[in-house]
Each structure stands twice: as structure tokens, then as C-alpha cells.
């Protein structure tokens, strides 16, 4: 005799398990994403988060790009009207970003002069990131690059 718990299971659990196995099956993934498919289990635990941020730089620094959780940040729109060196999400603006089980990917490319730096503070669903503030200084090549996961 089936327990009440098991009685409720069949229809959607079967459907869901089928969905998950489709995502993870090697047949469904293309050859080039073999290693990526291996991450499927981890990625299925990924969720979206609403991101707000503040980015400050010294005046010699120029940004090539900033992406948080695989979402490109529109720095031109977020530049402070009275301070060209500060960028922030204005008003109720939020970016919908991907947070994976092992953290949120933050990638930044910037150029600057020796002594230059940038500082980034990020909030996920209004909660400050534990790694705040994230900082980079100009390296020997005139770059201030960052490509790491944070939580």
C-alpha cells in the first residue's frame, strides 16, 4: 500500500524529473558544451537576483565593460550626472542577474594609470555582498581587470 506522500507524487515529479534529465543528458547538449553540461546539476540550483550597485573610480580610469551575473551593466546610463567618476543604479532600477550556487560572477575590464583604482559595492536582493567592497588597482600593464565569483 502506498503512503499518502508517495500517492501525491507521480504526475508532476515524473514530468519534472524528465525535464531535468533532458537538461543534463549528454545527448541534448552540443559537443562544445560537454564540460558545461557537466555543470548542469550546479546550474539548476542557480537563481536570479535583483542587483543594485555603486562603482567609484579615480578619474584616470576608463571602463571597457562591467558584467554582474552574466548581465551587462549599462555604465553610460548609470553615470552620475554631477560626478563622472561614480556609477550607480538610480531610483528603483535593478538588474536581473544570475547567481549560481558558488556565487555571482563579476567581470570588469578597465584601463588606467599607476595609482588609479576602482571600488565596487553590490547588493543582491537588497543584501550587501559578503565580499564588499571589491577593489582593483592599476597593474603593471595599465589594466584594472577582475573576473571572479563572489558571495
Amino acid at each position, binding site marked *: 500500500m502506498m503512503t*499518502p506522500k508517495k*500517492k*501525491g507524487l507521480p*504526475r*508532476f*515529479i515524473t*514530468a*519534472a524529473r524528465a*525535464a*531535468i534529465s*533532458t*537538461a543534463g543528458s549528454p545527448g541534448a*547538449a*552540443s559537443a*562544445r*558544451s560537454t564540460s*558545461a553540461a557537466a*555543470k*548542469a546539476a550546479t546550474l*539548476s540550483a*542557480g*537563481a*536570479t537576483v535583483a542587483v543594485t550597485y555603486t562603482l567609484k573610480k579615480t*578619474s*584616470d*580610469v*576608463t*571602463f*571597457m*565593460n562591467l*558584467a554582474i*551575473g*552574466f*548581465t*551587462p551593466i549599462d*555604465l*553610460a546610463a548609470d*553615470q552620475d550626472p*554631477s560626478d*563622472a*567618476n561614480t556609477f550607480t543604479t538610480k531610483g528603483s532600477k535593478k538588474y*536581473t*542577474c*544570475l547567481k549560481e550556487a558558488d556565487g555571482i560572477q563579476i*567581470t570588469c*575590464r578597465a*584601463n*588606467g*594609470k*599607476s*595609482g*588609479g*583604482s576602482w571600488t565596487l559595492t553590490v547588493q543582491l536582493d537588497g543584501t550587501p555582498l559578503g565580499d564588499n567592497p571589491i577593489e582593483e588597482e*592599476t*597593474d*603593471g*600593464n*595599465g*589594466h584594472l581587470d577582475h*573576473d571572479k565569483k563572489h558571495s
Partner: protein
Amino acid sequence: MKNTANLSIKPGASSIGRCLAYTMLLALFLSTSAQAQITSQDADGQSSILYQGSNINFDLGKAALSATWNNYRKSALDSPHILIWGLSASSKNKDGLSELFNQGKLTTLSRLDGFIGLRINGTKQELALNNRITALYRSAAIRDYIAALNYPTALPGWVNTSDAADRVELRDTLKAMMKHSAGFDKDLASLTELEARFKTAGRPAAAAAIQVVADSLTARQKKIAALQTDFLAAQHQIVSLNAELTEYRSNHVSHSWTIYLNGGWNANKFNFYSGDTTRPSLSARFDTVKFWGGFIDLGVNYDFGAHWTFGASIGYERYNNLDSFSTNDFDLETVSTVNNQELIQDTKYSAYTGHYVAYNRYNLKTDALYFGKVNDDYRYVWNVLYTRLIAPFGTSAIRSIWNAGSCITFYKSSGKFSGGIYVQSTDVFDHMGAGNSFGSRLSFGVVAKYSFQSIVDRLK
């Protein structure tokens, strides 16, 4: 009855040696010429009020009012080509506002400058890689997947219709799922458990509602599964392109070129004592001189790596030597004698004296800047060697002169200027004929304000 006129020059108004005059001319040229964003002529602006994107600097000591409009903020973001432009207008009383209030001296100096430049960034490989990564971030594969990950934000109507304990429990469970998903498997398991409990308790309506939610989550999961292959491929591509870009950038230094054209007009109006003895009266020896000048510079900057910026510019300028003059106060006394009585009328003049010349000249400027870090609070910019050639033409009264030096300036890490020191030779090849040694033509001092003349300043 007799009329006599005495013209006296008050102490403090002495003639200045030609060498000193030219040094002053250079010093003033250095202190007032283009700096921040090339156009801001008010090099001495002590306070800055920001208004609607324009900088208005007002310095009481220098009595300067200037406004700068530019799009320099755009250069905070890299793109293959950035067009930068600026416009600056300023007007000031050369003798300072306090002199205007105290003495009524008014020597107007007005300038209108503009510049336009093109900055060309980076290498083609680097930009191409960056563009490919940006395109992937914006691709449907990434955006649709992230959008599908969002849990539905609206609860099924049934759970909202009552505050009965079972509905509140379901409502809270669903809200917790929406707020932060623990993963599809766990969410589904908790829904299943809840449904089982409701069924056991004989609440089929509640169990059916849970079934609706579970179906919707399953549909969403199927959509995610359908998108996941493309997403994983795109994500994998982004990760490997980023690694490629990181590798490329670790082996190549950043560099950019800026080419600019900088031009402007300036005007001054001042009282001048001509000393012309052929004039019919002493008062007729005072002239009001109006001068219109202008300049145009073509410059190029090369930014290389973390440390170096090189700059050079060549330009033409219409100039005068007003800066080398000193002001003098004159008292013109007119004495009328009638029957042993004298009536003395005293007229005061304030005027410049000297050998006034308006002339044309070429300006050639070079700079080599080295950027460095002192500590976390301070950084420095060392203008390792700067040269200024000022070559007048069409006049023998002004000689060409080479000015060269080295200057180190310190900034707070935020970019605020905090001072510096310089050493320079105001006349490297002794064209002024001072006849003394090279060493004695060297000067050094403390810098209160400095501009890198042939360089589009990046620290302002």
C-alpha cells in the same frame, strides 16, 4: 598767471629688466594657459561649483570667472573611438578683484577657447574579443534563460481568498519559494509533502491548488531545460573568451592615441602711458589700448601602459607683452596762480608703462609624464622633461626662447591636486643674452597649480 604741470611716478613702479620681464611673461603663460580638458583657462580656480554639467570656477584672488562645457565624462567609458570636445569662456580683471574694489583698476582679460579631439583606444584584437563577449551577454541564449529562471511572482488566486490556517501555510511556502528558490527539486519536494498533508487532512481543494502551482513550476522547468543547452554553450563561450582576453591583456599593455585641435581668442583692454613727448599735453600721453589675440594648437597624446603619457603640440599665437609690464600710479597736478594764490587740481591715472609690442609667435610644446603611486593615499605625476619653444616672428623686439624643465606633482588618490616641485631653465640656450652660466639660469620652486600643456589631462 602761470600754469605748471608736474608728472610724478610713485615709488614701487620701477622698470623691470628684460630678462625678468620675459621670465614673468613665461610664468604667466604657464599659469594661465590651457589645462584641465585643455580648455579650462582658469588654472587657478580655487573653488568649483558644478551647475548643469558645466564647471564654474570663481576665484576672488584672481578675479576670474570662467565656464567650461565639455563632454569629457564620456571618456570614462572605453570605446574604439571617442570624440571629445569642450568650450570655455572666461573673463577676469587682470589686477585681481581686490584691486578693482580698492583702487578701481580695471584691466579686462577675456578668453574664448574650444577644443575637439579624437581618442583612439586599444588594439583591434582586444576590442574584437570584448565585443564578442558583450554580444554574448546580450544574446537570447543568455537573456531568455535568465528571464525564465524567475519564479512566477503571482500566487494562484485560491490561496489569497482566505486566512484559514491551511491557506496561510501554503501562501507562506509559496512566498518563500518566490523569494529565494532552493532549487527545483527541493521546491517540488516541499510542495509534494504539503499536498500529501492536505490530502490526508481531507482538503482536496488545497491539494488541487498545490497541483496547479506544481504544474506551473514544472512547465517553467521544462522551459529552462529547453533553453539550458544554448545557455550553457553561450556561458561556456563567455568563460573561455574571458580567459582568452585575460591572457591577451596580461601580455599587452594598454595604449591609446588622442589627436586634438585647440583654439581660441583673447582680448584685453588697458590704460597705457605712451611717454610720447610729441603729444600736445601730458594727459594726451595716456592711451586706451585694445588688443585682440588668438591661438591655435594641433596636438597629439600617446598613452602607454600604467606609467607613461607623451604629448606634443604645435601652434600659432597672436600675443602681446602686457604681462611683462607693471602698473604705475600717476598724479597730474595742474597749478593755477592768481594774485599770490595757487589752485592745485590733482588728476590720478593708473596705467601700464613699458615698450608695448603685439606680435605673432609659434609655440612648440612637448611633455613626457610618468605616473606613479606613493602610497594608498597619494600618487604622483612626474613631468620628466617638458620643453616649450616660443618663437616670435615679424618682430625683433621679442626673441625666441627655449624653456625646459622637470616637475613632479602630487595628488590625493581621489585626484585632488596637492602640490609639487619643479626645476626649470627659462632660457636653455641663453637667447636672451644674459651671459651667465646655465646653472644660474635654472630656477626651482613649489608648484601651487600646474598644467601639462600638451597633454589632455586625465587627473581632473
